[in-house]
C-alpha cells in the first residue's frame, strides 16, 4: 500500500495543480495505464481547485491499494450549503475572481463524479469530506516471454558495455556473473553486438535429426545478401539443391505477404489505430509487450514473417531456418504449430555453408552484376522503416504521446540498424547489403509468386508482458516499491554502472529483490 498526503492552501491559484502533479508522478511510476491516470487526474484536479476556491484550506491524501486508488479530500470549512445543487452541472458559487480565471464552470463536482468509480461527499460547516475511488484494472491477463540468450560468464572481462547498452536494462553483473533478468530481456541483439569477448550468443536448440524428409530452407534476406556478396545466386541455389536436397525459399516472400495482408486489413477496418505496426521484428514486439503495453493495439494482428514461413509447409517437410537474433528463435518456438518440424542453422554455420558452396559455383559474383540496377530505387511512401533501438524507442514514445507526423500508414520497426541486415551475426556492411538485396528481390519476386503463400492471423492476441510488477500480489508490490524508493535515496544517483546495475534505481530494486549488497556501490565506499 502506498499512501501520501499534501496540504492545499486557500486561494492559492498559483499553486493550483501541484498536488495533482505529484500524485500523477506516483501513479506513473507504478505503471498504471494512462487512461486510468487521466480519469484520476481530472477528479483530483477539480477537487484541488475546489479546495483552493471555496474552502479555508485543506488536505488531499491518497491510498493506492492492490486494485484501487482512494483519494480523500478534506477541508476545514465553510461547507457546501446545497450539495444537491452543487452536484448539478453548471451550478456554481465561485466568486467572480475565480470565474475570470476560467474556474467556476459549475463542473467541478459533476466532473469528479463522472471520472470516479465511487464517490461520496459529506459536508457541514466544519468542513467537507470527499472520497473518490477509482479501480485499477488488475485482472488483465499477461503473457510470458522466454529468453533465448546463451550466456558464458567466464568470457566476461567486466567492461560493463552490455549493462548500459541494454535497451530494457535487463543485464546485471553481480559477483563475476552475468544475470539476464528474464522479465525484462526482449531478445534483441544489443548485448551480442557490443560485447567484445562474445559472452552472449543465441541459444542453439537441439537439432531435430529426422532425415529422409523433404527439406526446405527459409532464407532470411541478410543471408541471401551474404551469398550475393560472394557468388551468383542461381548458381548457388543449384548447388545447394543438388548437393543437400534443400529447396530455398526467401523469407522476403512472407515479408511481402505480411505487407499485403496488412494493407488489406487496414482497408477493411476503418477504425484501427494508426500507424499500424508491422510485426516484422520479434524483438520490437517483445519490447512493446514489455515497456509499451498501450501500443499493443497498433500491431497488425498477423504472425511475423519467420513464424508464418515455418508454419506454411506441410508437416512432412523439414524446415530449416537461419535466425539473425535470439528473438527470432524465441518467436518461432513460441508460435509454431506443434507438428511443424523446424531446425535452426546458426548464422556462423550458414556462412560456412556459403563459403563451402561457393567453391563449387561458377560465374561472376552477383554483387557486380546487380550493382547497376540498384540506383534510384523506388520508395514506398506508405511504409516507413525505422531501425536501431534508439530510433525505435523515440518512435514508440512519440506514438504513445501521440506526437507523430501524419500520413504514416504502416511502420516497420527493427531493433537492429537496417533491420536484420544489421544483426551482429552478419559480416558485411548492412546498408549496402540491404540495397543489394532489395535490388535482387525486385528482380526475383515474380519467380515466387505462384507459390501463393498466405499470411497467418494471430490466434492468440499479443498481451502485455507479465512480470514488470515486483510481486504477484499487487499489495506487496506496492510495499516493495516504497521500500525501493527508500533505498535508492541512499544511493548517489550517478548511474555509473560499476555496481553491476545500469542505474542506481535498478540497483536499489536488486538490493531488495535479489538480495544484492548495498556496499557494492563504489561511492558509498569512498564516504
Amino acid at each position, binding site marked *: 500500500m502506498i499512501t501520501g498526503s499534501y496540504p492545499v492552501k486557500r486561494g492559492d491559484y498559483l499553486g493550483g495543480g501541484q498536488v495533482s502533479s505529484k500524485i500523477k508522478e506516483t501513479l506513473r511510476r507504478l505503471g498504471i495505464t494512462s487512461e486510468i491516470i487521466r480519469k484520476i487526474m481530472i477528479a483530483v484536479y477539480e477537487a484541488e481547485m475546489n479546495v483552493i476556491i471555496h474552502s479555508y484550506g485543506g488536505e488531499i491524501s491518497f491510498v493506492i491499494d492492490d486494485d484501487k486508488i482512494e483519494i480523500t479530500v478534506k477541508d476545514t470549512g465553510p461547507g457546501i450549503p446545497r450539495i444537491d445543487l452543487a452536484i448539478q*452541472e*453548471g451550478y*456554481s458559487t465561485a466568486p467572480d475572481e475565480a*470565474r*475570470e480565471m*476560467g474556474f467556476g*464552470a459549475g463542473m467541478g463536482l459533476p466532473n469528479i463524479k463522472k471520472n470516479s468509480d465511487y464517490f461520496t461527499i459529506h459536508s457541514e460547516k466544519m468542513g467537507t469530506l470527499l472520497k473518490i475511488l477509482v479501480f485499477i484494472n488488475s485482472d488483465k491477463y499477461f503473457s510470458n516471454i522466454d529468453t533465448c540468450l546463451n550466456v558464458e560468464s567466464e568470457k566476461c572481462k567486466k567492461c560493463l558495455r552490455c549493462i548500459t547498452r541494454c535497451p530494457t536494462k535487463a543485464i546485471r553483473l553481480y559477483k563475476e556473473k552475468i544475470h539476464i533478468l528474464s522479465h525484462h530481456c526482449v531478445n534483441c541483439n544489443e548485448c551480442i553486438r557490443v560485447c567484445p569477448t562474445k559472452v552472449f550468443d543465441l541459444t542453439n536448440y537441439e537439432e531435430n535429426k529426422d532425415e529422409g524428409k523433404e527439406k526446405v530452407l527459409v532464407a532470411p534476406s541478410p543471408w541471401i545478401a551474404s551469398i550475393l556478396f560472394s557468388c551468383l545466386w542461381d548458381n548457388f541455389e543449384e548447388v545447394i539443391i543438388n548437393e543437400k536436397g534443400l529447396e530455398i525459399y526467401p523469407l522476403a516472400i512472407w515479408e511481402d505477404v505480411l505487407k499485403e495482408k496488412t494493407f488489406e486489413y487496414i482497408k477493411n477496418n476503418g477504425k484501427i489505430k494508426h500507424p499500424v505496426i508491422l510485426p516484422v521484428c520479434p524483438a520490437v514486439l517483445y519490447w512493446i509487450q514489455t515497456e509499451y503495453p498501450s501500443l499493443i493495439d497498433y500491431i497488425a494482428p498477423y504472425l511475423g514473417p519467420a513464424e508464418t514461413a515455418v508454419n506454411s509447409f506441410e508437416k512432412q517437410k523439414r524446415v530449416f531456418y537461419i535466425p539473425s537474433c535470439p528473438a527470432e528463435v524465441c518467436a518461432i518456438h513460441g508460435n509454431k504449430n506443434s507438428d511443424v518440424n523446424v531446425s535452426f542453422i546458426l548464422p556462423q554455420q550458414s556462412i560456412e555453408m556459403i563459403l563451402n558452396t561457393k567453391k563449387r559455383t561458377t560465374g561472376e559474383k552477383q554483387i557486380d552484376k546487380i550493382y547497376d540496377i540498384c540506383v534510384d530505387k523506388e520508395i514506398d511512401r506508405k511504409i516507413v522503416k525505422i531501425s536501431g533501438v534508439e530510433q525505435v524507442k523515440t518512435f514508440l514514445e512519440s506514438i504513445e504521446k501521440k506526437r507523430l507526423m501524419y500520413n504514416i500508414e504502416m511502420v516497420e520497426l527493427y531493433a537492429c540498424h537496417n533491420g536484420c541486415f544489421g544483426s551482429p551475426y552478419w559480416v558485411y556492411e548492412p546498408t549496402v547489403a540491404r540495397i543489394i538485396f532489395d535490388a535482387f528481390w525486385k528482380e526475383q519476386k515474380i519467380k515466387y509468386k505462384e507459390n501463393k503463400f498466405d499470411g497467418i492471423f494471430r490466434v492468440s492476441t499479443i498481451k502485455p508482458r507479465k512480470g514488470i510488477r515486483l510481486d504477484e500480489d499487487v499489495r506487496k508490490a506496492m510495499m516493495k516499491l516504497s521500500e525501493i524508493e527508500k533505498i535508492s535515496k541512499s544511493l548517489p544517483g550517478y548511474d555509473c554502472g560499476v555496481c553491476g546495475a545500469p542505474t542506481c534505481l535498478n540497483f536499489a530494486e536488486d538490493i531488495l529483490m535479489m538480495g544484492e549488497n548495498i556496499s557494492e556501490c563504489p561511492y558509498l565506499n569512498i564516504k
Partner: protein
Amino acid sequence: MGVKLSEICNRLDLELLTSGISELMDKEVSEGYVSDLLSDVLANAQKGMILITLQTHINVIAVCVHTELSAVIFIQSRRPDDNVIKKAEEERILLFSSSESAFSIVGKLYEMGLRG
C-alpha cells in the same frame, strides 16, 4: 450580408429554447462572438452579434442586453435554468441550444459567412 436566424437554426440543427418571440427569427445577423468569460463579452462583443457560449448563468442575459446582442447559442447541450429563459423572453433575446462544441459551431457559422 447577413443570415437569417431561422436559417442558422435550421442549418445548425439548433434547439430553440425561448418561446413567444419567434418573430425575431427573421432578424439577420452577420457577426458572431465566442467566449465563456462574461467580462470579455462585455468588453468586446458588438451590437447585433450572435454569442456562442457555455455560460448559462443569468448574467449572460444581462450582458446581452447591455451589448445589444441578438441571440445566444449554448453549446455542448448546456441548458440554462427556466428563470434565465424567462428573463431572455422578457428582454427579447433568442436562446438556442446545441450539442456540438464551440469550435464546430463557430466553424459552421463561419462557413455560412458570419464573421467575427
